[in-house]
């Protein structure tokens, strides 16, 4: 079976080359924007490109970000493979975070069971929150994009209320009390944010890959994604697959919530703790073509860019938001499946020039 393997590598190589080209183009545009806005463009650009490597702490931030991006990327990949455009990861993160908080701040939170139970509670809450739009679509025909986006708002504002009133640590504080250490993730690398969340992200990659490519549920899910009508003819219950895919994706969203609140970053439930990261999963999944094994690679690269932009915003006169330009360009270039072999373009220019030359000569000869 060497033929499929080489085929596979060819595709991987081509896709990687394409992605790198997209990143280079996007960075060039970012450079142009920086040149126009910064007083010290060279330093600013260097900060964007090398920022995450400057200290142990920033390296840790990068790894932590990559782990979180991986989980949201996986959550989106799962629904995208079933061709469901559920956008509910953000809401799932918040309800997951709340569920983890309730366990962590309960008497159980101080015991050995506190940490794992909180994670499981978060995943269960996320799963339920993912199930709702799926069920609404299957039974009522509700569009999953709309319902999942609306559920996001409900979750975000409900958690805002929760940290302001019932779980508030004190007057004016938009956060819960700190979790007992027993409910928090263990630190893996001291003095960084790298914690157990990284391990959970790695486990999630393996699980999602296994589920999609080694189980009959995964095959059914992919067949539904390829052609739902054919799946019906083949006797696959497309609606069940659809709802279960959204539920499983919800569990991943919930897991991400627990990674936030139980991780070293927070260790408590706070207002807006997710900071909009959940939606970055859409970019990760699109760029990774919804392939679970490609998701962490994209997450590492993209996490690096995000951290670089963050550090650039702190240390230079160019705001972090410039990265939005890079992000938009990458999505645009990757989603439009552009073809831009520089080599072939050059060849075309040269041969095209030659051809026009020939044509002109022929014209003249006539």
């Amino acid at each position, binding site marked *: *079976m060497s*033929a*499929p393997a080489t*085929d596979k590598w060819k595709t991987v190589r081509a896709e990687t080359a394409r992605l790198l080209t997209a990143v280079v183009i996007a960075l060039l545009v970012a450079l142009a924007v920086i040149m126009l806005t910064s007083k010290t463009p060279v330093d600013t650009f260097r900060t964007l490109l090398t920022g995450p490597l400057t200290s142990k702490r920033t390296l840790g931030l990068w790894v932590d970000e990559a782990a979180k991006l991986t989980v949201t990327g996986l959550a989106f990949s799962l629904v995208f493979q079933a061709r469901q455009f559920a956008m509910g990861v953000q809401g799932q993160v918040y309800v997951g975070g709340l569920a983890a908080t309730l366990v962590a701040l309960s008497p159980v939170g101080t015991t050995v069971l506190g940490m794992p139970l909180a994670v499981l509670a978060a995943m269960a809450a996320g799963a339920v929150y993912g199930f709702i739009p799926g069920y609404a679509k299957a039974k009522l025909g509700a569009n999953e994009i709309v319902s999942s986006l609306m559920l996001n708002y409900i979750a975000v504002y409900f958690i805002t209320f929760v940290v302001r009133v019932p779980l508030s640590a004190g007057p004016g504080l938009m956060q819960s009390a700190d979790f007992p250490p027993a409910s928090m993730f263990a630190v893996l690398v001291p003095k960084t944010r790298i914690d157990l969340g990284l391990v959970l992200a790695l486990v999630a990659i393996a699980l999602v890959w296994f589920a999609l490519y*080694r*189980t*009959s*549920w*995964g*095959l*059914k899910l*992919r*067949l539904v994604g*390829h*052609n739902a*009508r*054919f*799946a*019906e*003819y*083949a*006797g*696959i*219950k497309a609606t069940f697959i659809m709802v279960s895919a959204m539920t499983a994706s919800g569990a991943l969203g919930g897991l991400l919530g627990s990674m936030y609140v139980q991780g070293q970053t927070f260790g408590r439930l706070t207002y807006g703790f997710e900071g909009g990261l959940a939606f970055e999963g859409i970019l990760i999944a699109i760029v990774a073509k919804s392939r679970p094994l490609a998701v962490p690679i994209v997450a590492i690269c993209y996490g690096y860019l995000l951290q670089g932009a963050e550090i650039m915003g702190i240390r230079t006169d160019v705001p972090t938001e410039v990265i939005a330009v890079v992000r938009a360009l990458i999505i645009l270039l990757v989603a439009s499946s552009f073809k831009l072999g520089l080599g072939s373009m050059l060849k075309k220019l040269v041969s095209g020039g030659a051809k026009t030359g020939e044509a002109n000569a022929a014209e003249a000869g006539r």
Partner: protein
Amino acid sequence: MQPLLEAKAIGKTYPGGTVANNGVNLSVRAGEVHAVVGENGAGKSTLMKILFGIEQPDRGELLLDGKPVRFANPRQAIDAGIGMVFQHFSLVPSLSVYENVVLGSEPRAGIRFDRKRAIEEVKALSERFRLSVDPLPAVNSIPVGQQQRVEILKALYRDARILILDEPTAVLAPQEVEELFAAIRSLVAQGRTVIFIAHKLPEVLEISNSITVMRAGKTVGQVNTRDVTEQSLATMMVGSEVTLRVDRAPTARDRCVLDATAVSVSKDNGKPACTAVDLKVNSGEIVGLVGVEGNGQAEFMEAISGVRAVASGSIRIGGTDIGAMSVLQRRHEGLACIPQDRLAEGLAPGASLAENMVATRLDDKRYVRNGILDLKAIRNNAKGLIDKYSIRAAGPHAAAGTLSGGNMQKVVVARELSERPEVLLVSQPTRGVDLGATQFIWRSITDARDAGAAVLLSSADLSELLALSDRLVVFYHGEIVAMLDNSDAVTPELLGAYMLGLKRQSHNEMKVAV
């Protein structure tokens, strides 16, 4: 006489190394209908794309009126007077007929779009060429046959002298084919030239003046239509003698396997598709469903396969009522189904062959245990079927969508027949499939019948129905109007009379056939 359009020693190799054309010659005289025939993958479409400027040849030259030409894009071909009607139409569904026709070359009054003149012009054009179509309705509200006329009008509006029709009859009912042929004759009578690409040899013989035969990227030869027969043409296409008939062993046919009683089914819009249909199919027989498309056959078949709900009546397989069963449960009762549109219903084009071939058996212990896939068994299953059905593909891992039409259909046939079904539902098994694959698929279906399957066959191709069926059942307006034992006495004309509702059997006559 100098040919109007000539292609000499055309060669085209696609990036990736597929040699689509290698030494293709074509010589079309002005005012003739020139058919280009060949199996799927023979290179017809590539040649047409070259003629229309979509692809550029690597070798060889094109001559128009004796002068060498080179089309870098379709625009240049259109300007040179070449028009093309694709198999899949390029119309804007929500725009009206006349808007589609003039789109891109609208008549203007100042800067304003002169609608009145556009409508007049389209009307005049359609009358002149006997392509009657109302200019006002939206394209998505008219039948496929008329949409095709809009495509032809579009080309004529741009003053096409040469009209290329890519398998125009594939989407048409027999009556519409006749109307299309009338239009083609009137086009030629008015000095236009038509290049006609086709699979179905009887049609080619009926409409064309000369025929170019292609095989494996080369032209085999050019012949005058009056000098050839269906048989000699088929031999040229395939390269060896082929039989257009299928031999069938006598079977007992004494056991009723599929029994539909008073079945009524609704269309998607809630209107009745068929009402109180009674049909019995015995083991070892093929029952052909005859009817112009849209007379309820498709919905009836869908109701049996389980993807459409039955409004009333009962369906039994071997005495078991399957009316309330899911698709999967019906498959366990021995039902298999080759749906009418392989890309929409028969396959997942993005999934691999191996995955497509087990899609109906994901609860089978051989391939799935405890929810885990047995990848080796799945691959071996695909390998076996690829060999047995001689499917041309890179291997079990190849995506189904990369195969040619005939090979895709073989994948569906292989999957459905490999489990020796009790009841086999077949819809349009050879639509858009080449002759070699057609032979193979016909053979496979008759083999299933000989092995004792009860086969229900629905097809828009009467010759297919006549070649395969033991009995024929004609649908008209959602009812069975005739049941006939297939014999030499049954002709397409007789079937046509029933199909159009001109004739109708009495109850007693139907009983005789049952």
